[in-house]
């Protein structure tokens, strides 16, 4: 016809048709299998990847619970804090980003690099916190140029603040960032890198209540990170409010009294065992821990010889000195080795086991019975009592009255002190106990060590004539206005006859209200009972004693334990002034002022 005249042979056409059909069938089968493998066999894998493309979950930090005093005055609350985050996914040029990050955070490039490196296990879109407490100026600078710095994000988060600064800082305790080791130990996911954790005080003790529950925000975003819709939001829940037994007004008064001093004061409400005030000086501002501390700032605090970080009330261990005479008197009476009428003559010194032991009054007190011995804190009387009692009996009574073991207060990191016994000495030094040592222990020296909290518990037990309170700082925990936990006062009975407590109380009453060592604590129309104690740093037998104690740091610590009123007692107070010298002159009047302040309100 019209084109080339050659016709194709039917065989050729048939061959071409078969060949092309076979070729098509093979090619389509291959494609079919390939799509089957991707869409059907690997469907789940690609579904996950598609979701990972669009879903982003950002954690919403929970504000920490408030810590308030018994009347609701705020001890610790939260403020809004700006944090600089880095999102590696949006980094264009890492070197440039590092330089910017260094500029914004004020940290050297190397430090920023190390910080970022810690998050290498995290997904690229994870928000790495670079700097907390970002200054307002930097926040505005970054936010106004967000399109130039897509890799940086500013987060607003609640952070801890203590409106009263150093007030009650030891009770409250401090926070610090959770460490990598802790995160590794605890893979439950309740903490993330950068989270703050309570490290001491109430912040540590009630961490599970205070930390609250984190929320999260899940968004769907497109390929250029623009949020398209919010697919889910869990609101963060603020931590519970921890109501303390602390009376912030009294706390503040005592802290002012202790200004410039080094030592501890504890005040307990005898009706409940609740701590009304707990002061340890010098103190620190808990907020310095919330900030990223400069190295020097940290060294200044941690190397201060006056140990501002130590809560001396709970952790400081000291010889109880003459305060221990309370224990000796109770042990002697209960063991019937003395009666109130038993007398001892004090001539200023006495020889026991070939060694001369001195009374604090070199001239001697003359004839002493139990009451006057307590009133004047006569050492000779108690040396003799110590000789009548063996060390293990003394240790048993000391333990009954709460010494040598944790006071059980609801605060962490407490010290237990030490009550020596023959078994202890054998176990520790592999030596038997020498009776001469008992003489030193009888006046609260030797290996005996106690904390102020233990002595507060001791004097509270005496005040309550043998009902030993459980000390506590927690009154209740509230969640959204409802009380979820309340501290029920706990008392245990000490197996010492009530009349023996009455006798000791009589002695303690005379200490303040007679001619005793604690008369400086006297308050009109208030029956205060107390006992002074002087905890020697240099043994009196030391030939250098006189010269050395001219120096402040070798001066003895001063104790004063007390309660009031004598009948139906309401308050017990322990005062410890480190290197305070004469207890009657410094610790006792301070206690007096505390009573006056408390009862005059």
């Amino acid at each position, binding site marked *: *016809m*019209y*084109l*080339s005249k*050659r*016709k*194709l042979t039917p065989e050729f*056409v048939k061959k*071409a*048709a078969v060949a*092309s*059909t076979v070729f*098509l069938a093979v*090619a*389509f089968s291959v*494609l*079919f299998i*390939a*799509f*089957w493998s*991707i*869409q*059907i066999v*690997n*469907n789940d*894998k*690609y*579904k996950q*990847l*598609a*979701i990972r*493309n*669009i879903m982003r979950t950002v954690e919403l930090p929970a504000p920490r619970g408030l810590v308030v005093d018994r009347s609701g005055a705020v001890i610790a609350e939260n403020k809004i804090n700006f944090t600089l985050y880095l999102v590696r996914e949006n980094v264009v040029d890492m070197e440039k980003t590092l330089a910017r990050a260094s500029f914004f955070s004020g940290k050297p490039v190397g430090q920023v690099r190390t910080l970022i490196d810690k998050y290498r296990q995290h997904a690229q879109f994870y928000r790495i916190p670079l700097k907390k407490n970002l200054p307002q100026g930097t926040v505005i600078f970054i936010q106004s140029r967000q399109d130039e710095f897509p890799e940086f994000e500013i987060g607003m988060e609640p952070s801890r603040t203590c409106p009263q600064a150093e007030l009650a800082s030891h009770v409250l305790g401090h926070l610090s960032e959770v460490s990598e080791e802790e995160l590794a130990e605890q893979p439950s996911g309740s903490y993330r890198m950068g989270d703050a954790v309570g490290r001491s005080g109430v912040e540590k003790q009630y961490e599970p209540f205070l930390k609250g529950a984190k929320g999260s925000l899940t968004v*769907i*975003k*497109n*390929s*250029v990170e623009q949020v*398209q819709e919010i697919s889910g939001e869990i609101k963060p829940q603020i931590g519970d409010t921890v109501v303390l037994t602390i009376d912030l007004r009294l706390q503040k008064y005592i802290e002012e009294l202790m200004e410039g001093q080094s030592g501890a004061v504890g005040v307990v409400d005898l009706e409940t065992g609740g701590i009304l005030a707990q002061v340890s000086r010098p103190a620190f501002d808990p907020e310095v821990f919330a900030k990223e501390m400069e190295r020097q700032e940290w060294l200044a605090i941690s190397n201060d010889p006056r140990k501002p970080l130590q809560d001396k009330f709970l952790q400081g261990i000291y010889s109880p000195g003459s305060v221990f005479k309370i224990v000796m008197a109770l042990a002697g009476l209960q063991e019937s080795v003395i009666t109130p009428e038993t007398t001892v003559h004090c001539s200023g010194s006495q020889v026991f086991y070939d060694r001369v032991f001195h009374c604090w009054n070199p001239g001697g007190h003359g004839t002493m019975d139990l009451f006057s011995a307590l009133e004047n804190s006569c050492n000779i009387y108690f040396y003799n009592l110590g000789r009548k009692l063996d060390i293990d009996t003394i240790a048993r009574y000391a333990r009954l009255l709460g010494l040598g073991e944790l006071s059980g207060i609801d605060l962490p990191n407490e010290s237990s002190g030490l009550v020596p016994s023959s078994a202890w000495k054998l176990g520790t030094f592999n030596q038997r106990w020498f009776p001469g040592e008992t003489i030193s222990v009888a006046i609260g020296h030797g290996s005996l060590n106690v904390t102020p909290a233990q002595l507060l518990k001791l004097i509270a037990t005496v005040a309550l004539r043998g009902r030993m309170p459980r000390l506590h700082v927690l009154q209740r925990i509230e969640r959204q206005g409802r009380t979820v936990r309340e501290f029920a006062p706990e008392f245990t009975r000490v197996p010492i006859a009530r009349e023996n407590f009455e006798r000791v109380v009589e002695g303690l009453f005379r200490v303040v209200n007679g001619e005793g060592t604690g008369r400086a604590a006297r308050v009109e129309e208030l029956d205060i009972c107390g006992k002074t104690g002087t905890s020697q740093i240099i043994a009196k037998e030391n030939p250098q004693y006189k010269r050395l104690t001219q120096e402040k740091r070798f001066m003895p610590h001063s104790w004063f334990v007390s309660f009031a009123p004598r009948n139906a007692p309401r308050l017990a107070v322990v005062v410890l002034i480190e290197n305070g010298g004469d207890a009657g002159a410094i610790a006792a009047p301070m206690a007096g002022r505390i009573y006056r302040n408390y009862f005059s309100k």
Partner: protein
Amino acid sequence: MRDIVRFFDKFTFALLLLLALAGILLIYSAGHSTQETNHLKQAAWLAVSLAGFLAVFSMKLDFIFRKSFSVYVLLLVILALQLVVGHTVARTKSWFRLWGIGFQFSEFVKVPLALFLARLLARHKEIDGWAFMKVLAVILAPVALIVLQPDMGVSFILCSFIPLVILLKKVRPALLVIAFLLFALGGFAAWHSLLKPYQKERIVSFLNPAQYKDSTGYHIIQSRIAIGSGGLSGKGYRKGSQSRYQFLPARHTDFIISVVGEELGFVAIGTLFFVFFLVFYRQLRFNFENDEEFYYVYLFNGLIFFQFLVNVAMAIGFFPVLGVSLPFVSYGGSSLLSFFIGEAIIFRVKISNYLA
């Protein structure tokens, strides 16, 4: 006229129309999240294509084949001119604006080239060295011009004519070796002078997609995620997250098959494959009488199949991303018009067999 209607392959035509209409719906889905109106433009182009189909279908085959050389030369001139005055779209000078409408002339080379090659093959019963050189020159002349634009996709697809010719005609092995060496040389030269950095990157990324996760390989990965996450029945029309949230690149053009896979699932993919298979099968199997016509039908079907294969393989990462669209379905008016004109000639050949 009655006979024409009677012998016209209505079923195959319906399949082609189905592909084009499905394409418009898919283009709408691919663009709705960014409020694009490509589907409307494509609908207009479909109307133009059908008109083109009708116009070519009504021409005498004799006339069509005779004019193929002139049209081929005219297109070479236009392509050369385009290099000087063409619009640059996405670093490519392949667009030519005429009365406010963008034409991609490289697409129009496919039909006249197939026609002219068919004539050439009909004239040479045996392909000797001289004839083979001629065939190569006829193919590579437009390919070279299109590479310079540069439009890798179309030039690559046009090159498919070379293996098609070799498969059809018995070409002596010695010629194949020489041709291969020439190609290697040309490829080496192209790599060092002609290829743009982004094109090299595409080829490298195909060879090693993980390394190029953030550029071209990223596209392959996102396309695979789209297809794979669709599963058996898909996420629903317009509900594909990969497409909707713009993870999928070139959703309305080169990666439209990924939209099918994600939103309509394996069922739709299987159906689409079956439709294409039916089209090829029906357009190849009929009683040819004239070799020139057969060569044309063979070459043009081969070209469509090759383009289909490259496009689909590219979407699942079996082939480099070259910018090759899915025939009849992807957005692109010039391409649609060109394919419908090419098909019109096949339909005309089928009719002529009955009406002779």
